[in-house]
């Protein structure tokens, strides 16, 4: 405790590999660790989705080595339904928690939040390190469930009781795997709570002279607000997981009602309700969706201004307002996941109105982004392309929210592929595009080498078209009433839809394969990429006023004084932008 010095105190880098790269207290190393973890997770999750898609397209296809992944088994390497469901569960859990939460928030946030506010490190470096290693432990725990007892759980990333809460009786994977799942998520919550504490404190307390709240870049704002959401949202999932573990391992019945009959005999449970889990889970779950998307929203608005060479329309104030409004609303709407769950019909209406209202701040936000593109001098580097792509996919995903926010329409569309398309577009793909944009934009700073633009552009085009080929058809499947979470389509009204699934599968495999271009680009850059200048993109925020990569204390002990907000682009003069650290008289500001 006592020797964890505040950021500005230590200017000497630690000695030795372990202290430098493994148990490092340096926020930059921790950021890279988070990013690496997310990278590992995203490729695991992607491979799982490949297997799922293959099974949906060609049910009887034998996939070599399939039996290795799960005890749920794949006789003759042909996927069984429970195997499919466990893959689906792991895909969802890995992607939502360890990719969409880790990369944009914990990864980039850890690396750049302190730099962008002009601090030498996080407020609590030790705690920061702890938060990563707890998250890492959570990931390992989750991965272990592949190898325990009867394999990973099959109750989906939402782990609905009573499927998840009665133990092995409810199906394969529910014996040990589900317990591991619950422990992993509980650990993850702890890690995120520690991280949130750190983010908030750093943003409020470690800002360099002149870095007023109004001058903070939108990325910092997004990370800060997201940390605030996470601080209270994960504090809700943690007890929920504890209750789930109690139900599973100590025979309590928080989520189990009386009179359930499993394997022919009546269970001893009494007094619980599966609805309670849904309430607790979604009360966390909806804020979680925003934890996943808001950082990307900030990253994109930040990068777009750099690419467009003009300040954001409405400036930091409007965008921050939108994000704040969304953050507050995110706590009022969780019931729209439960319209048909036996929820009180009146509260369904109560929930649907704020859900629809959420579209307002996001619409305004998107309009601000599009308005920024108007009249810009767009530099089409990969980062900018991905930011523009983000706008497109975010719109595509957001629009379908209009349907699902209405209980009356949800009666038909609930639990169909329409929902899958919706949240993949608006949460997964959009957030991933933000991550890609951030990667191409910041990698030069993070590893000191420029990424290959040609490969980057190829990666963008194929990904951009690919995701539309994967997820747009899912809307049509939803319209036709195609139920999600089905391991096979045997119902008469689903059989005609299988060709569409085949198409989606092909698209998914192709788009997934494209991601290896990105991986190669990253790998190649790390070792053989050309050295990066300090400010390759002519950007203004503080991270570009230091070397690439930054020294251990970020600014080489320089005394920073911030004179401008982060979006002084398109100004007169030799260079069309003003760094935040430039002298005050450089602009009428």
């Amino acid at each position: 405790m006592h020797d964890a010095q505040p950021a500005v105190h230590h200017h000497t880098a630690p000695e030795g590999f372990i202290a430098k790269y493994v148990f490092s207290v340096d926020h930059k190393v921790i950021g890279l660790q988070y990013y690496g973890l997310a990278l590992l997770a995203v490729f695991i999750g992607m491979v799982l989705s490949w297997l799922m898609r293959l099974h949906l397209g060609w049910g009887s296809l034998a996939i070599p080595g399939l039996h290795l992944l799960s005890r749920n088994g794949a006789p003759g390497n042909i996927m069984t339904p429970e195997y499919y469901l466990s893959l689906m569960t792991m895909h969802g859990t890995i992607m939502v928690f360890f990719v969409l939460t880790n990369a944009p928030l914990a990864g980039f946030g850890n690396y750049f939040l302190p730099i962008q506010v002009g601090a030498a490190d996080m407020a609590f470096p030790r705690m920061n390190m702890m938060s990563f290693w707890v998250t890492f432990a959570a990931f390992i725990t989750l991965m272990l469930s592949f190898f325990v007892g009867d394999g990973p759980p099959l109750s989906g990333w939402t782990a609905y009781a009573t499927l998840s809460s009665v133990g092995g009786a409810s199906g394969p994977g529910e014996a040990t795997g589900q317990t591991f799942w619950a422990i992993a998520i509980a650990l993850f919550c702890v890690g995120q709570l520690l991280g949130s504490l750190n983010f908030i404190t750093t943003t409020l307390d470690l800002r360099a002279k002149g870095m007023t709240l109004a001058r903070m870049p939108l990325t910092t704002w997004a990370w800060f607000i997201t940390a605030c959401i996470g601080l209270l949202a994960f504090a809700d999932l943690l007890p929920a997981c504890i209750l789930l573990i109690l139900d599973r391992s100590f025979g309590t019945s928080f989520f189990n009602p009386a009179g359930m009959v499993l394997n022919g005999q009546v269970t001893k449970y009494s007094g619980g309700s599966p609805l309670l889990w849904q309430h607790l889970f979604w009360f966390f779950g909806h804020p979680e969706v925003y934890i996943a998307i808001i950082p990307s929203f900030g990253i994109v608005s930040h990068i777009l201004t750099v690419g467009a060479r003009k300040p954001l329309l409405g400036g930091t104030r409007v965008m921050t307002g939108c994000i704040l409004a969304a953050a507050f609303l995110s706590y009022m709407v969780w019931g729209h996941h439960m319209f048909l769950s036996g929820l009180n019909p009146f509260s369904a209406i109560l929930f649907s109105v704020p859900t629809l209202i959420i579209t307002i701040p996001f619409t305004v936000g998107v309009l601000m982004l599009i308005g920024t593109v108007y009249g810009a001098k767009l530099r089409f580097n990969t980062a900018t392309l991905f930011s523009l792509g983000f706008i497109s996919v975010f719109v595509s995903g957001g629009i379908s929210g209009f349907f699902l926010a209405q209980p009356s329409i949800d009666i038909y569309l609930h639990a169909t592929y329409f929902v899958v398309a919706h949240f993949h577009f608006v949460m997964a793909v959009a957030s991933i595009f933000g991550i890609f944009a951030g990667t191409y934009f910041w990698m030069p700073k993070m590893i000191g080498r420029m990424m290959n633009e040609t490969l980057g552009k190829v990666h963008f085009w194929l990904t951009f078209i690919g995701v539309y080929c994967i997820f747009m058809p899912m809307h049509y499947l939803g319209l036709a009433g195609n139920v999600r979470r089905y391991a096979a389509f045997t119902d008469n009204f689903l059989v005609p839809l299988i060709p569409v699934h085949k198409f989606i599968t092909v698209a998914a495999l192709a788009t997934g394969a494209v991601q290896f271009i990105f991986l190669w680009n990253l790998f190649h850059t790390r070792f053989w990429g050309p050295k990066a200048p300090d400010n390759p993109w002519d950007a203004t925020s503080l991270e570009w006023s230091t070397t690439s990569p930054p020294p251990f204390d970020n600014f080489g002990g320089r005394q920073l004084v911030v004179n401008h907000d982060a979006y002084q682009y398109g100004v007169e003069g030799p260079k069309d932008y003003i760094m935040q650290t430039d002298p005050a008289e450089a602009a009428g500001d």
Partner: protein
Amino acid sequence: MGKALGVVTAVIGLVSAYFFVAHTWWLPVDISTTGPAIDRQFNETMIEAGILFLAAQLLLGLFCWQYGDKPGRKIKHWPGGPKPVVAFGIIIVGLEILALSLFGAKAWGAIYLTPVASNALHIDVQAEQFAFFFRYPGPDGQFGKIHPELMSDDNGDYFGIDPANDVAARDDIMVGTLTIPVNKPILLTLHSKDMIHDFYVPELRIQQDILPGLVIPIHFTATKTGRWEIVCTQLCGLGHYSMRAFLEVLPQDQFDDWLKQQSGD
């Protein structure tokens, strides 16, 4: 590059929209009295959302096409600044929301907030891993009491009724297919034996989770005769995908015969 992105974005928008407009894949025929309201709501939303979708994609595409980085060109700011844009967003979307939630609430209420007709035919539904079972009260119009400890698929006592001691239970009819008369209000009381299941008939525009420990009522009226599928849409275990039953909508007279013949044997 910018022009390419502009074209691609526009094309993506238009192609995506085409399949919605052409109804290549669309909602199945509607066979319920409450369905039309939902379909109307759906179509209205589709039009409004579609316009917003296309407008956004095309605008984005247009700007990408136009505003590449040409040397010497100055940046242009949005005419009138952010205020009108914000106002536009709030007003347009606000109005849309207002309309949608008003009519939407009506359509929703027609199913969930209206009392069931007094002459409704009451059918009890039991869901279990991985099947639906349906129970008719029989001539006496009384359901036998449910005893979970008696539930067993082996002796066909899916509902755990006790005919030996329970008079009301003796004439209960238990079947695996939901057979109903056309144009007659139906009241279903849904309950589950183990997991959360879901009663979904796309053609009826009815979807409702079935929770263990709760008895959830839902009512509808079928307007077309025919045979439709009932599927489970709430993940309930490894057999989830195979959990289904059939909905048989018969003319009143045929239904009466069917019922008589059922209670006969």
